[in-house]
């Protein structure tokens, strides 16, 4: 049972929840940039949260299923169709053997997750199936997908009564997941900011500035641009560990927000950190999208993280119940 890649899209790779236990060796966490959408997609098809799925960036791939499969698409809003039928997002569906799935351009958001019941069966390397693009290991041959690749799928779990065998082409689940408010795709994203050690004194400019996402952004970092560069207060003297969500300010005054593939240690000033609850929205910011920073307190950040966690748990429980019926 396999998934054939007819066209790879801009950057399509195998990702799961990454390797959060190897940073002492200089190994990035990696995995899905938007872990919320990945986990919802996995829940909808009956997978464990850490199952490997495809992460699709800005322009999607063209894929062929060699066998019947149950799939779900979650994340940014992308054009998606199965033989001419427009496909919904945030909803499980069964596709028949031989179907060709076309994922087009993103209409809003940057990353889409395609989960397949059973998960992608790539070998686990350093506790994860995620592709480490810089290190060239994990996922499918340590690289982004190319035309002609054929990815192994795990044996499907029992498809249940929702998915009668006689169906041809496409069959949709009767239920879907609502990602709001955990993941919303606004025209100008308001992203929380917790103060960092090098946050400049009188930081009003930082919060008054509207930033635009630079096209050089990647899985390591979201690069921001603004009309006026952000001025620095003081420079760190030493490279020190950083975290996913750390906002670094290089000398040119354009902030970089660290994402899943970020290095473990950084030498630039840390002007702030993005609360964990905002990471899924960060992951969905595409080049030329706009964002504004909003001051957050730790208490607010943790409260919002708990809300996100509860939202995800409710969706996972509901999907489990629906699949059991």
């Amino acid at each position, binding site marked *: 049972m396999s998934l054939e890649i007819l066209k790879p899209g801009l950057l399509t790779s195998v990702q799961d929840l990454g390797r959060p*236990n190897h940073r*002492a*060796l200089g190994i990035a966490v990696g995995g899905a940039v938007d872990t919320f959408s990945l986990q919802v997609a996995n829940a909808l098809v009956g997978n464990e949260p850490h199952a490997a799925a495809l992460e699709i960036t800005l322009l999607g791939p063209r894929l062929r299923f060699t066998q019947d499969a149950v799939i779900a698409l979650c994340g940014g809003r992308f054009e998606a169709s199965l033989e001419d039928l427009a496909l919904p997002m945030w909803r499980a569906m069964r596709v028949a053997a031989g179907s060709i799935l076309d994922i087009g351009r993103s209409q809003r958001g940057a990353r889409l997750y395609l989960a397949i019941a059973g998960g992608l069966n790539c070998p686990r390397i350093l506790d994860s199936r995620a592709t480490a693009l810089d290190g060239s290991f994990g996922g499918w041959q340590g690289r982004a997908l190319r035309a002609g690749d054929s990815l192994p799928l795990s044996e499907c779990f029992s498809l249940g009564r929702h998915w009668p065998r006689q169906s041809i082409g496409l069959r949709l689940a009767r239920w879907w997941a609502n990602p709001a408010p955990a993941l919303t795709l606004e025209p100008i994203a308001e992203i929380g900011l917790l103060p960092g050690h090098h946050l400049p004194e009188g930081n009003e400019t930082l919060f008054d500035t509207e930033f635009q996402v630079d096209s050089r952004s990647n899985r390591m970092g979201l690069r921001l641009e603004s009309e006026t560069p952000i001025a620095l207060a003081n420079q760190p003297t030493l490279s020190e560990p950083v975290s996913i969500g750390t906002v670094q300010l290089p000398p040119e005054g354009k902030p970089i927000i660290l994402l899943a593939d970020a*290095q473990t240690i950084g030498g630039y000033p840390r002007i702030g950190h993005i609360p964990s609850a905002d990471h899924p929205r960060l992951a969905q910011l595409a080049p030329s999208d706009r964002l504004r920073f909003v001051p957050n307190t*730790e208490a607010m950040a943790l409260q919002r993280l708990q809300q996100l966690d509860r939202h995800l748990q409710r969706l996972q429980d509901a999907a489990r119940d629906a699949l059991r019926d």
Partner: protein
Amino acid sequence: MNAVLQPGLTLEPLGDSAVLAVLGDRIHPDLNTAALALADELDRQRLKGVLDIVPAYASVAIHYLPLRMEVPAEQSRRKVESWIKQTWSHLHWEAHRQPQPGAEDIWNQSILPVPVCYGGDFGPDIDHVAAHCGMSVDEVIARHSAPIYRVAMLGFQPGFPYLLGLDPRLETPRLASPRTRVAAGAVGIGGAQTGIYPLPSPGGWQLIGWSPLRLFDPQRHPATLLRAGSRLRFIPTAAEDIDTASQASR
């Protein structure tokens, strides 16, 4: 030997799910020893919900899951911080200041010999380094391969060692314009630092040699040959001897 530098502990949140324990603000063997000893002791008495303990030159980051710390989320950072403070207050890091050359250190590692082919195609910048430092190429090689280096921290790439111990007379500024591709195994000098690239990547260090050792192999356990606290020595090796040298040191 320098006088003992007294590290002081300050704690800095790195967002809502990591704390940075800062012991000092410069590169100094004592501060690094203290950071490594603290990281080691925290690792020995891990709290539930802690993901990663990452030592650096003079600091240690603790990454944790604020909703999995067995206390209400708003108390998670306080719990991590009091664990760090308590561990620090009981730590006798000075005991680890001067491991005897040749003896195993507290990290139970002997000194790793790292074969290096210096100069030529293996180290295209060695002439520039020699000219900059006002010495012959042979002297650059002799001074670079004399000390026992210690890995202060890993970062930048999987298994990339930031080394302590470079002879100050070898300090050479980075390239004005970084190379777009540096080979895995390249040995370089960047300012007061020296190290080896585990993976091909862009890089701005002056390349003086190349080592066949695989510093990072995701299929191996452990995946990196070195860890923070490891010690190594560069062994000048002729290109024709490199196969046997890499066999012997594997």
